[in-house]
């Protein structure tokens, strides 16, 4: 891996000095220094909007968000386990507005990069100098014929975007008889939140152990093994939840028979009382219509020093929609870190200043094995100019030695602070 040497760093600093001085003169009129439009007010978009405004108050910042409130995906598995309420994870955009960010409720349907306009579903348009797209993921249903209609999707839920689906899946679990079978299908990586599926298994097991002890969980994992925190999850499954969880790797999904409540695999069929199928994901729709998807018809390739799309100039992409760098998870922490690198770069580009050539990003993901005990996975990533991507710093990062209540308090602290950064 290649870091900047001292001479290059000094060159960057010197270059920044001259350019900044010139831009400083141009921006003295008192009017806006530029317009940034952010599509999507989740962990990536809301955080980017906050920091563009905070670090450059003379830039106009507008967020376009389709929902009236923000619902956190992290911690939402606890709602399924009966260990928290969705209302505890639901927040408003008032804090972001109070910081001077304009929040428009609406649906961005297209971005015209040549005229630098974002078009909304209501026919209106917003002009930008730089646009930041943080659309999250949408699901790929066309390979699952039995689920490829709205009615089927309302019966067999993903609950992989927190909100109404989370509450609906909780209701299905509550309505299930004791002795019933919960069948949970996990897509092939990469998907949103690598440890999330295994945390969900723990949360449902925690609920069953308490209220429906004769019930069973069948985990149909497309992957050849647990994708994240394997040893720690297996310790819970073979310890506190012993005998409740039937884990089946290499369970590639063929179809879902909604009427027969059966998940069809390539060589097997598995019937359940409650089915939970998480389909494969891709970058959200607006990324597709804007031509930002560059990898496997699913993900958006970036220049990691700016988070600018490699396909469309002037358009930046954050969060789960990105083509992840090696060992970089699709997580809220990561989207939050993309957002701050992007915000600083967007300000620099608008003001004609040099961009930080050496971004660093940190990841922390906490998983709850029950209502209180938590374990983490952590990593630090730095830009490698030779490979033109972010790489994990060797020797840094790792996982917990065991789940603990102490890390439970840190997990809630992480949540309060990352929510505060986005919306506080």
């Amino acid at each position, binding site marked *: 891996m290649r870091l900047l040497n001292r001479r290059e760093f000094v060159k*960057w*600093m*010197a270059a*920044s*000095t001259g350019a*900044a*001085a010139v831009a*400083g003169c141009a921006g003295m009129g008192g009017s806006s220094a530029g317009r940034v439009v952010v599509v999507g007010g989740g962990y990536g978009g809301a955080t980017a909007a906050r*920091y563009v405004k905070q*670090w450059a108050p003379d830039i106009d910042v507008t967020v376009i968000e389709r929902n*009236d*409130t*923000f619902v956190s995906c992290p911690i939402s598995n606890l709602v399924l386990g009966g260990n928290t309420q969705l*209302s505890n994870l*639901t*927040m*408003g955009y*008032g*804090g972001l507005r109070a910081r001077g960010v304009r929040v428009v409720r609406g649906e961005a349907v297209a971005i015209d990069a040549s005229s630098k306009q974002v078009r909304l579903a209501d026919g209106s348009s917003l002009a930008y100098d730089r646009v930041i797209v943080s659309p999250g993921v949408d699901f790929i249903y066309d390979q699952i014929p039995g689920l490829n209609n709205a009615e089927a999707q309302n019966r067999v839920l993903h609950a992989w975007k927190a909100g109404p689906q989370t509450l609906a899946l909780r209701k299905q679990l509550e309505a299930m008889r004791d002795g019933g079978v919960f069948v949970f299908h996990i897509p092939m990586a990469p998907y949103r939140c690598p440890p999330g599926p295994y945390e969900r298994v723990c949360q449902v097991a925690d609920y069953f152990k308490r209220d429906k002890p004769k019930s069973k969980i069948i985990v149909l994992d497309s992957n050849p093994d647990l994708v994240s925190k394997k040893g720690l999850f297996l310790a819970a499954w073979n310890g506190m939840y012993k005998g409740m969880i039937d884990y089946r790797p290499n369970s590639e999904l063929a179809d879902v028979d909604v009427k027969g409540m059966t998940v069809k695999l390539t060589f097997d069929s598995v019937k359940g009382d409650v089915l939970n199928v998480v389909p494969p994901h891709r970058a959200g729709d607006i990324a597709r219509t804007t031509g930002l998807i560059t990898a496997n018809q699913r993900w958006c390739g970036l220049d990691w020093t700016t988070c600018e799309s490699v396909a469309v100039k002037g358009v930046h992409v954050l969060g789960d929609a990105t083509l992840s760098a090696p060992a970089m998870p699709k997580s809220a*922490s990561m989207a*939050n*870190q993309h957002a*701050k*690198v992007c915000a*600083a770069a967007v300000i620099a580009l608008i003001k004609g*200043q*040099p961009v*930080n050539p050496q*971004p*660093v*990003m*940190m990841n*922390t993901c906490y998983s709850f094995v029950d209502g209180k005990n938590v374990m*983490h996975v*952590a*990593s*630090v990533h*730095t830009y490698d100019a030779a490979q033109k991507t972010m790489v994990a*710093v060797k*020797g*840094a*990062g*790792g996982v*917990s030695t065991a789940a*603990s209540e102490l*890390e439970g*308090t*840190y997990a*809630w*602290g*992480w949540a*309060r*602070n*990352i*929510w*505060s*950064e*986005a*919306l*506080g």
Partner: protein
Amino acid sequence: MTAISIGACCAAALLAAGVATQAGAQDANAARSLAATCFTCHGSDGRSVDGVPPSLAGQSKDYLLQQMREFRAGKRPATIMHQHAKGYTDEQLDLIAGYFAGVKPGPAAAAPAAR
């Protein structure tokens, strides 16, 4: 010295001061970008909402650097910080500690409840 040359001297001095300020600002931006990687858990600008994990804002630079060195060496028990501390160079830690030492302490604003 004539009025004109005084003016020229002032202009040169102002330009030099301006350059120094801009270089300082860019250094501050580099420190801010590095420190921003810590905000996710420790709060924006190191001001933690409820003080868990602890606020870093306004802590002395020497104290912060000492703690990071002890995390890295495994001398201070930790759940996660020994793993993060190994992700940064000494120069980076110096910039990060300097940044937080320069921030006024105080709690961060919690995200507002939905209406």
